[in-house]
């Protein structure tokens, strides 16, 4: 078990290093001179050159890479080209939007999906199963940005229950902030819930077919107990895998949703930074997201072992 985790950890680290090379290399070939962009198209050549020197853009490539990686390790991500503030400040301002959003969406999706999946599995083949899985099929097919648009027009423009977008900041109080995150969270959660419900159902059905479950049932254990206590626990591995993937997706994949709701989150930060050629921000945020995907995957691996004691020996 320890050896297995150690191996995963090493692989994760190696992936990070290669990823940093890829990210840095790719972004260096992006067209566009950040200095010129910052000063606009009426700026004179010498003003631009002065700014290039100020930003360190005249340094050799390798030096800039090492400087950047060294900075990442010490949490000094450098200064944003467009905002001219430390990138870490920008990121920490945005994480407090994206992370709660991802967590709320994940909680919401789990809270909907697991009961629906279990319910469906327990009524396999009956109308209730057909209807809920049919709904899940539709849910999987709905693009979340389109769903978000429909939500905005119903709940913000017609009913005026929640804001149409924007984020007042946590300083405005927990309730207004949560209210602003409500629609985006729903828009993100429902398509994810549909996927999760389907996975939960099929994982459960697989487990329910196993011998030990039949034995438990034969021994007269109540159906409900078997379902929730034994079957669900053993069906958790695929569910956890999907949850891990979904968390990574939610953290990074909110780009479109954050654009629809103009939320100042990480996704929009990186999208804006790409269009503004704020390379240092793009590099740092992408690395951060890659790192978090790797960490989440490690945690998922770890949780397999917790859920299923058999794996502790086997892997």
């Amino acid at each position: 078990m320890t050896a297995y985790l150690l191996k995963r950890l090493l692989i994760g680290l190696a992936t990070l290093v290669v990823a940093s090379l890829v990210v840095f290399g790719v972004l260096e070939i992006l067209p566009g001179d950040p200095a010129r962009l910052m000063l606009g198209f009426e700026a004179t050549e010498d003003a631009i050159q002065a700014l290039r020197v100020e930003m360190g853009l005249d340094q050799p490539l390798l030096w800039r890479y090492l400087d950047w990686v060294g900075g990442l390790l010490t949490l000094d991500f450098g200064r944003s080209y467009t905002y001219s503030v430390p990138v870490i400040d920008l990121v920490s301002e945005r994480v407090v939007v994206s992370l709660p959003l991802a967590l709320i969406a994940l909680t919401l999706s789990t809270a909907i999906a697991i009961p629906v999946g279990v319910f469906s599995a327990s009524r396999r083949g009956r109308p209730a199963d057909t209807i809920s899985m049919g709904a899940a099929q539709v849910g999987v097919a709905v693009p979340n940005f389109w769903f978000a648009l429909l939500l905005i027009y119903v709940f913000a423009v017609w009913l005026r229950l929640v804001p149409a977008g924007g984020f007042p900041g946590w300083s405005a109080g927990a309730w207004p902030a949560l209210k602003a995150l409500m629609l985006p969270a729903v828009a993100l959660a429902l398509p994810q819930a549909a996927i999760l419900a389907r996975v939960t159902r099929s994982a459960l059905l697989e487990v329910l077919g196993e011998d030990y479950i039949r034995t438990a049932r034969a021994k007269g254990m109540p159906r409900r107990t078997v379902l929730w206590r034994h079957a669900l626990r053993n069906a958790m591995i695929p569910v956890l895998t999907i949850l891990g993937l979904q968390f990574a997706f939610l953290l990074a994949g909110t780009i479109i949703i954050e654009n629809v709701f103009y939320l100042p989150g990480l996704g929009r930060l990186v999208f804006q930074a790409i269009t503004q050629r704020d390379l240092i921000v793009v590099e740092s945020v992408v690395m951060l997201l890659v790192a978090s995907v790797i960490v989440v995957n490690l945690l998922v691996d770890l949780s397999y072992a917790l859920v299923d004691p058999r794996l502790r020996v086997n892997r």
Partner: protein
Amino acid sequence: MTDSTDFRSETFGSFAAKAFANRSFLAGFVITVLIAAMALLSFLWTPYDVTRLIVADRMQAPSAVHLFGTDHFGRDVLSMIMVGARNSIAVALVAVGIGMGIGVPLGCWAAARGGLADEILMRFNDLVFAFPALLSAIMITAIFGPGAVNAIIAIGIFNIPVFARVARAGALSLWPREFILAARAAGKGKALITIEHILPNIANLLLVQGTIQFALGILAEAGLSYLGLGAQPPMPSWGRMLFDAQTRMIVAPYLAIFPGFAIVFTVLGLNLLGDGLSDVLDPKLRRQR
């Protein structure tokens, strides 16, 4: 799979009979054929020309003249949806092709060779999976410029590890089988065995995965187009239509409704098809559903 017999023995006729008895497959098949037919028809005929802008006719509500109304340039929305289907299908299909074309040989190779080759492939997979797909697709299209071709590449790249993984897992489970061992004993090389025995037997897995990736590709293309990074005008695309509709939704909700439904309908059809296929092709899974 329950036994070690070669899978190819099944005839097409008995497969079709089984498939059409499956509700999910039938529904998905009908929807997919409808969408594909619509896309093909658009090559020959659309109610109006989508490249000609008649600004004077802009933003007309659905009527007998324009069934789905007209957009902000006076183009017929129905015609745009028909031509847009072509774009969505082309992008997603080619992206699946890239994924299969590169991923499957890689996966089979890794399974056949094992050892270091396998390890390298798996680590490459880890690397690609560690990059959030949509974010990376956005970066790729931002670097090479927006457009259908770059959208295909961006989506295709992320299909490679998916197919590599499926092909590898399928192939690995086959190598210890009796009929493969027999072939090896007969002196056949690994490459030949892969082509003659492995590929036909993992084709069903690949077909199911292909359908799923096709559906995901349609969604991804819609997302990229929505951000303005997919197919460029004058080529209509569903994602772009939604983006354009967004600013006009209050007076012209139909602009957002129809393309949205087109996406949902297509993806739903493909997913049903994929479900149905996996039911029919994989007896183990069928037992669970």
